[in-house]
């Protein structure tokens, strides 16, 4: 790409100026200060890189265009540039309007017409040899911009080699300076913040840092403090809520108790008297009941006594009968006992009877004595005659030849006989006495006698019991008499009537007094409850006063938990934002350091070009740049000494800067057409070196289009084939 013509219609103080750039090389815009050299520079930059529709606030617009509006008040500036690219002719025109959007038009031989910034820019990207940045920073940079880098970096005590390298690598922006700025910002955000652990750093003693540190650190602790505050407020709010809850319960209870005590105060006051009266009534009612009971008891006792006495009479009659009967039985029994004795004795007699047969072997006579009292009976037995013989007690058989006495075992039979007689006589005598006919017709009376004895005993028992009962009832009556201090039953009745009257009168008295509330059996129960409540009320009031004191001691938070919560959320938002920025700066720092360590960037490729230009300008063969890898250490003089980097003079620095500039232009325009605009490139170079510098530029302009702005005609004259354009 080569620029053929520049027309300004108007632009700055230049109006209807057309500059032909095909008359020689380099193109030198020559004019006094303020004549318009920089205006041409701005027009050229604007036409290629500043949209006609750009915002009026755009920084580049303000820098390059805004100040180029004519002083006559016109609000339009217009630049038209003709150029050639790959054999084709192009014309670009831009009109900037201060009050509205401007116009951009690109025309080309084979292109036709394109309008509008967007489409034109798209096409320009294909045509322009480098991007806007490269133009801005290298190809169309003011010379002073590169020199400024040296000055700036000298101020920051940076070594020249580094400056050189950085200025090349960074479009005039020093990574070192960039790093310093990033670190400064990182300090602002990340001071005392541990990005790896995402937490604040602590002092060596494990405490938090006091005072303001990085924004992340400060926001973190502000948030933590507020969170703690929030915890405290929530604790206070919860505690307050709990106390108020208790207070409410207490108040409700107090209300119930208070209302009970208020409602029943008179009843309570009356209840003392009421209690006495009630006691009286109770006593009297008890007395009355007692009278009534005792009256009934007396009455019943009397009835019972009467019944019992009647019964005793009957029993006694019965007893008498039974006793008579028993006497009869006793008598009969006596006779019966005698009969038994007789029977025994007669039994003995019977047992003493002897019986046997006498068989006469021959005729025999004998006498038989059957008993002692009777005379013998004489028998004669024929041979073989048998005589049955019976005797009582003694059987005496007397024959001539013998006497046989046979005695029974009964002993004294006579005595038995006598006994029987005596007994029978006695019996008869007694029977006569008792009027009982013998022999006794009935059997053993013992059973009957036993029965009658039992009956008699039972009757006696009953009689005894009846007497006992009578005695009991009499005692009851006596007790009643004693209890009531009365002597007659009518008196108790009278007392009862009296009591009833008194009770009635007491009850009437009660009716005039305040009632005890419902639900209470009696005044005592009521009074007990009333006093319990009175005590409870006092207790509750104490509790309440303690709670109130507790409540009063609690601090009232300056803000509510809700407000603080919102504030924490807001802080958190700020914290997250600061953290993000901090992390971003950290990333920038790391990335910058990585890139700074990476020496393989474009500097190495420039080394040869810089050396070549330096030699050319200094016109000293064998002058070499001393490099340590990519770092410029100094200039090796052919006479064998080295000018160390730190000893380079200002003029030498300018030469280095120019060499650098030309090398960069070559680098960026290699393999393509293009132009470089240079603003007074020789102005600070030693006069003795200017021609060599001009020749070096001239040499570059043979291959690449060079546009030079200068105010010094002598500088223009240094270029042999220059196209000098006076502005």
């Amino acid at each position, binding site marked *: 790409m080569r620029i053929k013509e520049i027309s300004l219609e108007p632009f700055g103080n230049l109006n209807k100026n057309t500059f032909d750039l095909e008359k020689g090389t380099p193109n030198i815009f020559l004019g006094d200060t303020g004549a318009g050299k920089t205006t041409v520079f701005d027009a050229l930059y604007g036409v290629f890189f500043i949209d006609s529709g750009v915002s009026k606030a755009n920084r580049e617009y303000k820098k390059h265009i805004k100040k180029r509006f004519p002083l006559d008040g016109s609000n339009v500036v217009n630049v038209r540039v003709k150029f050639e690219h790959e054999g084709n002719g192009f014309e670009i025109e831009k009109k900037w309007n201060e009050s509205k959007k401007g116009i951009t038009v690109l025309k080309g031989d084979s292109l036709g017409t394109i309008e509008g910034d967007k489409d034109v820019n798209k096409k320009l990207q294909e045509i322009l040899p480098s991007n806007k*940045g*490269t133009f801005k920073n290298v190809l169309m940079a003011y010379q002073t911009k590169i020199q400024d880098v040296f000055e700036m970096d000298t101020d920051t005590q940076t070594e020249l080699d580094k400056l050189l390298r950085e200025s090349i690598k960074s479009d005039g922006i020093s990574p070192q300076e960039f790093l310093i700025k*990033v670190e400064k910002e990182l300090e602002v955000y990340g001071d005392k913040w541990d990005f790896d652990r995402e937490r604040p750093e602590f002092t060596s003693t494990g405490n938090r840092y006091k005072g303001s540190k990085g924004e992340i650190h400060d926001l973190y602790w502000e948030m933590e403090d507020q969170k703690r505050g929030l915890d405290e407020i929530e604790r206070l*709010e919860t505690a307050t*809520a709990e106390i108020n809850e208790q207070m409410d319960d207490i108040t409700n209870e107090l209300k119930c108790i208070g209302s009970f005590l208020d409602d029943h105060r008179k009843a309570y006051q009356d209840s003392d008297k009421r209690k006495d009266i009630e006691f009286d009534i109770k006593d009297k009612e008890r007395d009355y009941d007692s009278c009534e009971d005792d009256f009934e008891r007396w009455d019943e006792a009397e009835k019972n006594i009467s019944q019992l006495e009647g019964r005793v009479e009957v029993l006694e009659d019965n007893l008498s009968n039974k006793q008579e009967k028993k006497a009869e039985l006793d008598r009969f029994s006596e006779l019966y006992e005698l009969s038994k004795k007789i029977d025994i004795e007669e039994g003995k007699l019977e047992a003493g009877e002897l019986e046997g047969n006498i068989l006469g072997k021959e005729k025999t006579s004998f006498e038989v004595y059957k008993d002692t009292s009777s005379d013998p009976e004489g028998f004669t037995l024929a041979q073989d005659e048998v005589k049955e013989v019976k005797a009582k007690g003694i059987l005496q058989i007397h024959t001539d030849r013998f006497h046989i006495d046979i005695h029974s075992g009964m002993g004294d039979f006579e005595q038995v006989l006598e006994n029987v007689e005596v007994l029978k006589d006695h019996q008869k005598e007694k029977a006569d006495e008792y009027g009982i006919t013998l022999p006794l017709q009935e059997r053993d009376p013992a059973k009957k006698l036993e029965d009658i004895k039992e009956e008699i005993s039972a009757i006696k028992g009953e009689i005894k019991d009846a007497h006992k009962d009578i005695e009991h009832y009499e005692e009851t009556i006596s007790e009643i008499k004693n209890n009531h201090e009365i002597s007659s039953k009518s008196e108790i009745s009278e007392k009862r009537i009296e009591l009833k009257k008194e009770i009635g009168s007491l009850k009437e008295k009660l009716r005039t007094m305040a009632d005890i509330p419902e639900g209470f059996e009696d005044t005592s129960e009521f009074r007990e409850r009333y006093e319990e409540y009175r005590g409870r009320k006092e207790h509750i009031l104490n509790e309440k006063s303690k709670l109130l004191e507790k409540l009063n001691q609690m601090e009232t938070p300056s803000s509510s938990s809700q407000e603080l919560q919102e504030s924490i959320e807001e802080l958190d938002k700020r914290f997250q934002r600061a953290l993000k920025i901090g992390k971003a700066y950290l990333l920038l720092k790391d990335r910058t350091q990585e*890139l700074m360590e990476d020496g393989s960037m474009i500097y190495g490729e420039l080394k040869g070009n810089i050396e070549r230009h330096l030699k050319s300008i200094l016109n000293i063969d064998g002058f070499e740049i001393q490099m340590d890898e990519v770092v410029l250490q100094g200039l090796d003089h052919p006479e064998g000494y080295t000018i160390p980097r730190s000893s380079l003079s200002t003029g030498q620095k300018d030469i280095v800067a120019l060499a650098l500039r030309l090398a960069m232009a070559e680098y960026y325009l290699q393999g393509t057409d293009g132009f470089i605009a240079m603003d007074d490139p020789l102005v600070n170079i030693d006069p003795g070196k200017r021609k060599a510098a001009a020749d070096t530029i001239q040499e570059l302009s043979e291959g690449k289009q060079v546009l030079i702005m200068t105010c010094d005609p002598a500088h223009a004259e240094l270029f042999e084939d220059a196209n000098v354009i006076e502005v």
Partner: protein
Amino acid sequence: MSVRIFHTADIHIGKKFSTFDVVPDLKSELVERRFEVLGDMVDMANEHSCQLFVIAGDLFDTHTFNKGEHVEKVRSKLIGFEGDHILILPGNHDYCSEKNMNSWEWVEDIDRVSVLKETRPYELSIGDEKVIIYPGPCNSKISKDNKIDWIKDVEKDDPEAFKVGVAHGHLEGCSYDSQGSYYPMSKDDLEQCGMDVWLLGHVHVQIPEQDTSLQDHLYPGTPEQEGFKRTAEGSEKGKAWIIELGERMSAESIDTGKYTFIHEERTLNSSEDLDELKKYLESDGNEHTLAKLEIKGRLEQDDHRDALEYINSLRHDHKGFRYIIVEDDDLDQRIDMELVKENFSEGSFPYTMLESLIEEEDEISKKAAELGYDIFQEVD
């Protein structure tokens, strides 16, 4: 026969509005407006011949309200009410406890005012009608338990009386209370109490959103919005209910508020987004709107500059809003290769740096690219 009730809540008298003192007079205007709206509502209640004026909690912004600054001014507004009764329920902001009982007594001294501070029925006679109020007063800022449980058990033996529940707190499904700390109630709880209508407070938007004869639990919302909320709260003007209790209950919404608080979040990723924002903000009728704009996004260089200029102008002249605050910390310039190529030489340090960051695409890298670009511009 019927009874007409004016139902409001959450007036927050005494709110300080400290964050608004950056604009002259705005803070005092907002503070004063809390009183004004009370007066306005009293006038509206009179116009609609309401017999009852019910404030369902948070008449005051804090339980430490004072007599001269707050109560007396409230009195001056409430005495204008021409109906029969004014009922004021302590809410969770102006809760009634033993500690501030005296303060509530000042309120009770106002003519026809009953402070519903006790959990008991309050019987009212309005003409021939009998209304029994069953309140759930708050006794602290927070509570995990509601205050209406007592109503379930109390005898309600007068079938002729209107039964009106008044409570303040969070109703399940109607608001957000993650911790359950604001006297949480469920609809079952309300139903079990057997009320004809529930007059609620605490939520600052009106619920339901339209007039109703079907819903028996009503939040009036705040009568005057009082801050920027992330939810819909604040974006609508304040409202209240006018409720008719008769054979059928009906509730009519009434506008009470003057101000709206808009909390708008916008993402600007193109000039069109910016144009839309301008269009949105530059509509008419915002003289009583306070807006908080959170703007984020990434814009190309010129759009970003335009957006920042516009934001600055918003901050400066408020564009017809009563007040506008813009947070644009997250509005960044889009740093892409096109921009890099435009500004830096290929292979240069800024070029290499920004190219590597742009390739990574995560948020930190994007931010780093933006910050790096700014520093490069600054150095340049």
